[in-house]
């Protein structure tokens, strides 16, 4: 009897010690994991998204504080503003100055441009016209919804930007964008060597990086300085109106004429591209009515070819 009792007693003590070790070890492990996670989160918050890039032979030393500042303010945007863009198709003569200004500003290859002047034609007996098409900077951007790493984002002033230091090159956003506004740097960017030492500016997306997305930035760096976007000021034909929706005013990039946004949209029967998708674009178009310059014959042929292609 006594033997049994001691046996039982021993057994319960062993069990108790076993359980103690299990629980104690478990809680130490769990506590450690939580502590290190908190530590990591804290560190991440203090100096956001920084990488020191060692490239080939030279170590790139980046000014940590300045870089984080550029990325921080690039993410926040300009308070109290809601940028709005109006493109007057009646004025476009396919001068393509917007495209070259854009390429120059963002160090793009000749075949790349955040702004494209397209030749459009709806059906066989409707006229062809030129249509400049930038990113629509949607208020409900599908590209941002699908980004798995928070590399592309929308700011409080409406601009949709890309942070190529975070981009992993998955190209989900290209697939998601109904306006075909994004492109991928498949090969080394044009000025890869020259720009290597440049501090990354998210509002200019410079330096461009191979294996990441590049897109229209609404010239966010210029907006900060109170200047109109590169493409808008480069246009010789008065196609672009740009302004702040909160002020209800837009300014023409060519003539610098300023007028009421609501009036301009109302009087000219403005429309948006594919509003049925619910993307809520920040770009408005004025119909190509009363054009002074006809579409070139070769462009007309190109347009009708597409019409036939889609009709067949």
């Amino acid at each position, binding site marked *: 009897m006594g033997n049994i009792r001691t046996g039982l007693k021993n057994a319960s003590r062993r069990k108790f010690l076993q359980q103690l070790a299990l629980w104690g070890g478990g809680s130490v492990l769990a506590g450690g994991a939580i502590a290190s996670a908190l530590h990591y989160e804290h560190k991440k918050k203090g100096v956001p998204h920084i990488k020191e890039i060692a490239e080939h032979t030279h170590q790139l030393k980046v000014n940590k504080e300045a870089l984080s500042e550029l990325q921080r303010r690039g993410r926040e*945007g300009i*308070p*109290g*503003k*809601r940028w709005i863009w109006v493109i007057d198709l009646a004025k476009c*003569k396919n*001068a393509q*100055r917007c495209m070259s200004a854009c390429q120059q500003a963002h160090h793009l290859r000749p075949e790349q441009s955040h702004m494209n002047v397209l030749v459009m034609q709806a059906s066989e007996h409707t006229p062809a016209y030129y249509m400049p098409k930038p990113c629509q900077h949607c*208020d*409900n*951007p*599908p590209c*941002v*919804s699908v980004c798995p790493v*928070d590399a592309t*984002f*929308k*700011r*409080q*002033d*409406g601009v949709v930007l890309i942070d190529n230091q975070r981009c992993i090159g998955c190209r989900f956003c290209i697939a998601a964008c109904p306006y075909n506004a994004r492109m991928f740097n498949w090969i080394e960017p044009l000025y890869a060597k020259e720009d290597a030492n440049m501090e990354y500016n998210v509002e200019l997306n410079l330096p461009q990086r191979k294996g990441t997305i590049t897109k229209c930035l609404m010239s966010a760096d210029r907006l900060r300085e*109170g*200047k*109109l976007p590169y493409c808008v000021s480069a246009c*010789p*034909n*008065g196609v672009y109106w*740009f*302004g*702040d929706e*909160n*002020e*209800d*005013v837009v*300014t023409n990039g*060519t*003539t*610098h*004429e*300023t*007028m*009421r946004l609501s009036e301009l949209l109302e009087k000219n029967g403005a429309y948006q591209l594919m509003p049925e998708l619910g993307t809520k674009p920040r770009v408005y178009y004025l119909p190509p009515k009363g054009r*002074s*310059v006809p579409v*070139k014959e070769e462009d007309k042929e190109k347009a009708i070819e597409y019409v036939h292609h889609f009709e067949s």
Partner: protein
Amino acid sequence: MRIIERKRVILFSTLLLFAIAGRAEEWQVPADKEKRTSPYLFDEQMRKKGEDIFKRSCASCHGMPGQGNNIRSLVPIPPDLAEKKVQQQSDGAIFYKITVGRGAMPSFKNSLTEQERWQVVAFLRSFNKDYVQPPLARLVDSAKLRSVKVIPTFDTVQHKVVVLIKAFQKTDTLPLSEAEVSLFVQRYFGNLPIDSVRTTSQNGLVTFNFPTNLPGDSVGNVQLIVKVNHEMFGELEKTYTAKLGVPTIKPPLTEKNAMWNVGKKAPRWLIISYLLVVGTIWFFLIRIILSIRKIKQTGKNPKL
């Protein structure tokens, strides 16, 4: 027969084209504007600045003067500005055309200052060997300009702006008539003109109708600019703040919970359903572990 007919058609259309082109060239410049001369001497510095502006704002259609690279597909054809037709015109006429524009040619009234427009004229004149600059227009006496007083009154109920202009005339500061007054609202990229340009009456007054629906800041304040231009007294500009706008506070566009927003601002249904799914899984995991424990304990109990 057909060939002749075709030739006729060609001849006719050529004549028609000439007629259209000829009509397009008649660009009447008011006599007083035509007589205007530059108040600045056309020196090398002026020419150089003019060249920069020209390259930026004019060359895309007109091409560089004397090189014949103007865009001929446009109607009317923007002339090469070194041409005789252009150079025969007075400085005042060229200045006027740059200022107001016509048809496809934009007005540079708002994008270039008067001095910049004269710089462009200076650049264009450098392509004319025979050009001799006429006597300079005199710049306005600064003492006279300083005597000009602008006294605005803002009627926030009727949405009217009344501006009284006074200036020192002969012996005393008196209301100034015949002064051109324009009103603007300051905006981020440029100034919005309000109403039209008005000329002061005998009692030196002008009245502007202010729109009732123009957004102001959070309390409805707008920054106003009054520009005054008088032949004798020159140009001046004053800035004021008035409560003439509609109070506007628009939240940032990233305020709403949405799919595309940051993690914290994800849609509520998404947060709730996510937490529900995670919670349910944990609930069942814990239940399974507890059940296993119960089975084990039950198995050990010799009584059962």
